């Protein structure tokens, strides 16, 4: 709605009307329903197995290092999701980036209004890692920002989302199925970077991005 676009004080729908975001409780409710439906698809045998697994899990919670174990398995789960998201983003042409730009001032505002946080976006062209764009993705049960870079000819996905209360941590490297993965926490944001470039490359890339 731009009746008099030259006057910023005139009412304007796109600017003045409320964009109603889904409440967190609804997000959780919907996720739970979908999970239930997915479980039902897998049949009752799976449900019984889950019950058994749950009872084992309950027992293991008693143990002193349970918290550590679950944190590690949580990281494993995220690693799987990040890897899947990376591979899939390269399978479908045009899927890698919804906003294609090497300009951080184009990529960063693209996320405004699409997710409830502002991901730090930096072009690392000067270090040999040009920014190529960004898109939304879904990791660890929430919408996340996916920033895409290149290490020479290798595409890199960097997934970013807020880490409530987590303190900064230096990049940790790992490899899985021939991919190199690095993850770290900085300034309240969790970062997971994945690429098919070598571990030394992702390591340097991660150090630069994590130190900025």
């Amino acid at each position, binding site marked *: *709605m*731009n*009746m008099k*676009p*030259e006057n*910023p*004080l*005139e*009412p*304007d*729908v*796109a*600017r*003045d*009307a*409320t*964009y*109603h*975001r*889904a*409440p967190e409780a*609804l*997000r959780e*409710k*919907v*996720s739970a*329903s*979908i*999970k239930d*439906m*997915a479980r039902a*698809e897998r049949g009752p045998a799976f449900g019984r197995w889950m019950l058994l697994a749950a009872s084992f899990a309950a027992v293991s919670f008693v143990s002193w290092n349970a918290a550590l174990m679950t944190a590690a398995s949580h990281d494993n789960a995220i690693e799987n*999701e990040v890897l*899947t*998201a990376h591979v*899939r983003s390269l399978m*479908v042409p*045009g*899927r890698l980036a919804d906003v294609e730009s090497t300009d951080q001032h184009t990529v960063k505002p693209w996320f405004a209004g*699409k997710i409830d946080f502002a991901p730090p976006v930096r072009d690392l062209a000067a270090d040999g890692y040009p920014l190529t764009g960004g898109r*939304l*993705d*879904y990791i660890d*049960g929430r*919408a996340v920002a996916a920033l895409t870079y290149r290490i020479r000819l290798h595409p890199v996905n960097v997934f970013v989302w807020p880490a409530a209360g987590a303190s900064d941590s230096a990049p940790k490297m790992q490899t899985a199925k021939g991919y190199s993965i690095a993850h770290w926490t900085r300034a309240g944001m969790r970062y997971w970077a994945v690429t098919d470039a070598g571990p030394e490359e992702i390591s340097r890339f991660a150090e630069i991005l994590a130190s900025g």
Partner: protein
Amino acid sequence: MSRHSDFSRSVMPHLDAAYNLARWLTRNDHDAEDVVQEAMIRAYRFFESLREADARPWLLAIVRNTGYTWLAKNRPADVVPIDDTSTLASDVVTIGHTSPTETNPEVILLQSANRKIVNQALEDLPVGYREVLVMRELEDLSYKEIASVAGIPIGTVMSRLSRGRDLLKSAIELRMRKAS
């Protein structure tokens, strides 16, 4: 990969868009949540019918259908058919502009008054105009996408947008005159 994770990554990121449309259709938080919850379950059931890379218009079409069904059942008076033949198909071209970043208190006051008036005027529009304006201005959908979501021809999208903007403009002006 499982259907569940495919759905999570292609449809779940559009939950805000789904809620925004449902909220503007029902004009109520609680009802919007019910509509979205039901629409998401339907979306999961009909996930195989998603053909496009971008799931947003597909999801919004499901939200819209669910919302209309809900309105017809709970607030039939809200569903007023629109006579598209009587409106002119002259579309106003939207020119993008950046919002001001001024911090002048008078400007801030005026803008918050604008927000209140625009929200009220938009809520009062007939749902057929309200939904196309929301999809165009807040969701930034193309005419083609709006046409597919609402199941109407592109020409009708354009004429409803045009008429909707005119109606909204008069409603806003009326409210501003009352306010001053």
